[in-house]
């Protein structure tokens, strides 16, 4: 058949044939809209914008190939089966055929999504690249109330909690966490796994309210896919560090809602090479596994020191870059204790990820508050009644700021009862933004100071000494500025004195004028210079205008858009500066 021949009723070539509207696609697939939606979500099919919208501008278009892709998916058949099954059960119940209903309910048709995952993400890195949304969603659902009768099944929420803990345990264990940020929306984390930067958001550990303005069907479909994806991801990641995947946790710790700690412990014990006891036990079945999990508690590796030792060993084995090394040794040799009121889950995740040892107030904690080796206690209350002199009492923000700055910041600003310094986002490129907050500069100086100093990282004992050194270096850089200022002041003063002297000697104004005539001349020349400058500027502007008029209309539009963008950015920065100035002036007024 020649190419130009088009049988009657066939689509034309081009966009009309390549793209199909959603309504038509649903009709073509012979499924309901809800099923289509679900299918699209699971298969990752999204609408595409054709160059020419044949059917109208306000319609959604899918590529015909995508629709064909859906058409041939076995999942469609499975969905039909489920629908039929539901009808059968309904019928059996209506006919009071309880046997049949039970039998049917016993074996509902199920489907698996592993094939879909492999189809959408043929390689592991692809999956890692798209993991942001998955993690955010799973963490969000993990924070929802696990209450029977709500719109989300309790079991799924528990599953989300488990998956998120497993992920966090892996990140913490491999020290791949890079940045953290407490925002109003929750806590942002950024980790680097296999060279991919993965950012996710966990809501604050507070009661979330299920609102009515969201469609849970859509979200749960997404969650279904994400749960499976994260499960497989976790399996692969655990596999890569030689840990059995569905981890068996100590039920005692699990009951105390410290799954993360339990997981960490599981992982660290799972890689003990010469642990014959555990090796023996592993061969046994589930029951013994549970026993093993309990035994982990009694193993020597449970002591924090030993745990750290193991972590060290494993990280030494890994091939890693400087970044990871820096991260894993940030809180090395530091021992933290969390008070009741701080967000425990987040800190239990972060501190070990940066090489620290941590315990908390409550049951199942590895060590007590009275432990002498504790260097920092994280407290978030107005006053601390009982104070150990051997440790610092800091607010939780200190940890997050230290992590972002990658140095141990001086704890003075974060002491209990004080308003901590501003918490800055590590995701902002300050220089690109054009405005550097004050505290960012302070941190920069501290970092520079820490870099210059080729000292081993602060051990517990000489912490104070180290701090003074840091301060000294900061002082040195600051002192230069001060000297400059002083010099200027002196000059001004000198001038003032000279004038006074002249007055004393009784020189009249005219004299002075004649004296200062040279100055006047200077001024004139300056004015002339200014004039020249102005004309030069004018010429430059003219040249710019000419080149603008020579441009094509499209390019001119682009240029104007860029200019608008730049001016907006500038306005923003100016606004920030103005606010800062206002705040400072009001503060100084108050101080007086």
């Amino acid at each position, binding site marked *: 058949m020649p190419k130009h021949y088009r049988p009657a009723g066939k689509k034309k070539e081009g966009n009309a044939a390549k793209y199909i509207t959603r309504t038509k696609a649903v009709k073509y697939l012979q499924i309901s809209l809800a099923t289509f939606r679900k299918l699209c979500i699971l298969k990752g099919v999204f609408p595409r914008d054709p160059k020419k919208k044949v059917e109208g501008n306000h319609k959604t278009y899918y590529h015909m190939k995508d629709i064909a892709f859906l058409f041939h998916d076995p999942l469609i058949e499975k969905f039909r089966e489920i629908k039929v099954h539901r009808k059968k059960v309904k019928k059996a119940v209506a006919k009071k055929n309880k046997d049949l209903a039970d039998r049917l309910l016993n074996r509902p048709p199920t489907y698996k999504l592993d094939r879909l995952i492999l189809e959408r993400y*043929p390689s592991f890195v692809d999956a890692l690249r798209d993991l942001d949304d998955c993690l955010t969603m799973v963490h969000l659902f993990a924070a*929802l109330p696990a209450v029977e009768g709500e719109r989300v099944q309790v079991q799924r929420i528990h599953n989300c909690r488990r998956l998120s803990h497993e992920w966090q345990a892996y990140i913490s264990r491999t020290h791949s966490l890079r940045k953290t940020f407490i*925002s109003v929306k929750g806590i*942002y984390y950024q980790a680097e796994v296999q060279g991919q930067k993965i950012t996710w958001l966990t*809501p604050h550990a507070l009661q979330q309210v299920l609102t009515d303005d969201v469609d849970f069907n859509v979200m749960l479909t997404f969650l279904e896919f994400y749960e499976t994806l994260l499960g*497989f991801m976790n*399996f692969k990641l655990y596999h890569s560090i030689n840990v059995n995947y569905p981890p068996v946790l100590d039920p005692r710790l699990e009951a105390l809602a410290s799954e993360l700690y339990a997981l960490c412990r599981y992982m660290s014990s799972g890689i003990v090479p010469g642990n014959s006891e555990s090796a023996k036990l592993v061969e046994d079945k589930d029951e013994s596994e549970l026993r093993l999990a309990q035994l982990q508690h009694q193993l020597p590796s449970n002591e924090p020191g030993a745990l750290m030792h193991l972590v060290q060993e494993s990280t030494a084995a890994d091939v890693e870059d400087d970044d990871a090394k820096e991260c894993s040794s940030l809180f090395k040799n530091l021992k933290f204790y969390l008070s009741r009121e701080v967000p425990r889950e987040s800190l239990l995740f972060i501190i070990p990820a940066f090489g620290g040892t941590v315990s908390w107030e409550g049951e199942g904690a590895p060590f007590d508050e009275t432990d002498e080796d504790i260097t920092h206690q994280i407290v978030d209350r107005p006053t601390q009644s009982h104070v150990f002199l051997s440790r610092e009492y800091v607010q939780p923000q200190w940890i997050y700021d230290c992590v972002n700055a990658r140095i141990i910041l001086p704890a003075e600003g974060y002491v209990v009862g004080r308003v901590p310094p501003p918490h800055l986002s590590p995701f*902002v490129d300050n220089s690109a*933004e054009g405005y550097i907050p004050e505290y960012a500069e302070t941190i920069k100086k501290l970092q520079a100071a820490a870099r210059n100093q080729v000292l081993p990282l602060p051990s517990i004992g000489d912490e104070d000494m180290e701090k003074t050194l840091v301060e000294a270096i900061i002082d040195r850089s600051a002192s230069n500025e001060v000297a400059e200022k002083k010099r200027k002041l002196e000059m001004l003063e000198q001038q003032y004195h000279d004038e006074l002297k002249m007055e004393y000697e009784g020189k009249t104004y005219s004299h002075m004028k004649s004296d200062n005539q040279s100055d006047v001349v200077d001024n004139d020349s300056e004015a002339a210079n200014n004039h020249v400058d102005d004309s030069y500027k004018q010429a430059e502007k003219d040249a710019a205008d000419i080149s603008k008029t020579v441009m094509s209309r499209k390019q001119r539009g682009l240029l104007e858009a860029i200019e608008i963008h730049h001016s907006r950015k500038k306005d923003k920065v100016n606004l920030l*500066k103005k606010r800062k100035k206002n705040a400072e002036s009001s503060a100084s007024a108050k101080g007086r």
Partner: protein
Amino acid sequence: MGHSDGDHDDLSADDSPWSEDIWSDDNEGSLSFEDSGEGSDAESDETDAPAAEESDSSEDEVAPRNTVGDVPLVWYKDEEHIGYDISGRKIKKRDREGRIEAYLRNADDAKNWRKIYDEYNDEEVQITKEEAKIISRMLKGKTPHTNVDPYPDYVDWFEYDDKGHPLSSAPEPKRRFVPSKWEQKKVVKLVRAIRKGWIKFDKPKEEPNFYLLWGDETDTADNKRQGLSYIPAPKPNLPGHEESYNPSVEYIPTQEEIDSYQLMYEEDRPKFIPRRFDCLRSVPAYEKALREGFDRCLDLYLCPRTRKKRINIDPESLKPKLPSKKDLRPYPRTCYLEFKGHNGPVKSLSVEASGQWIASGSSDGTIRVWEVETGRCIKVWKVGGVVHRVAWNPQPDRHILAAIVDHDLLLLNAEIGDEEVQMRTKKLLHIEELAPEEEETGDKKPAVKWVNHDKFDGIVLIHHKAVSTVEWHFKGDYFTTVVPSGDSRAVLLHQLSKKHSHHPFRKLPGLPIAAVFHPSQKMFFVATKKFVQVYDLQKAQIVKKLESGVREISSISIHPGGDNVIVGSKMVNCVGLILIYPHVHTRH
């Protein structure tokens, strides 16, 4: 009930006179019923029922002693009577007993438990034993009277035909002894279904949920995604400083700024207003968390995705590179000669064909001819009007200068060169006779009138309207003038040798701006506001129409080689130069 006999005696003895009045109304039956009831229950079945009925009705009949009616008794609390009897006398209340007295009396009285004080009638009523029994039965939820049977045997009052034969005498049917065929069929069906595995009772085996999905990453062919190219969804924006729970002061808007957001359009309004919390524990749950998650989901599956290249362009690179002045060298940079003499602005300049002379026209009303080499002014004509244009005759041996002064065209003899040339020029610029022509045209004013100029020894071409341009033919005999407001006589052709002029174009596409001769061929170009029309002079027809594409043509010129036409236009800011190739294409 040992003291039942005594009870009855006490009842009659203890009763006060007013109580006897009531009881005296009771008929004998009731009393006898009590007696008989005590004697035997079974025997008195028949007699009791009417008696009971009677007593019920009699109780209703007894008028209450109290005649106050249905009013609260509190009203009579302090009175000593309770209403009036039929003869109008007060019905007195009983005397109040002291508590001790009452107690003593009650203690002595064994039947005290049966006495009830009737407040309404102000009397003490003694319940009979029978009544007490009724009350106790009612409390137990039984019928008040013992002799009422709530479940009597059913008496079949009607007769039936089959009454004498309770069982059928028909032989037992076979189906009672043979197993059911249909049941068997059903069972067979089930059995077969079970055998074939259509019906399974055990729960399906649980397979391990997760396994190593991604194996070795070595074979790249398998790792390719099938189908259309995948466009990953853009990642959500990372949070800035302002989203911090504890942002620095400058990120927090003042109250006025927050108020001013209300005046903005909803799209422009900032979605997030930074807030500052003093400590981490005071940060509340983010109420829009679910909503934002949901919005992200919607974006992921509903938004059309296209790949767009976002290039980080330096705005400077967009601007076309203007050639630097250095590259344009050599160009005159220093002033070599100045021709001084004009008092007003010079409006037009023309170089003679040999290049030795320059003519200039100024708005001070003079035309001057200069020698190029020395800058000496050779000749001055004081024409007494604004000189718009000057043009030399292109023939080197004809030193004729065409100048537009005010409305009209002036042909002047420059009087340079050797004498022979000067003579010829002078001859050329002389009109012999013109009277008959004038008569011919008669009523209509001619477009052009050739008149000798007496003062300067030249010719004046008096046009009917203002002339804007003048251009010479390369042979120097013909020249053309354009009168923009001349309608059908806008473009004029003049022949110098015959002192004759005509207007060949009746119709033009728009207002004529300028007209030029081709430098070597017999072609003629007329520029209107938007087009350039090319005419063949010999065939007297249009050859080509060139579209310049500029908004308004202001001038036109032809390259001496004859291949290119250049058109100048009045653009907004600058003068665009447009090249038109008469043969094939146009280039801007």
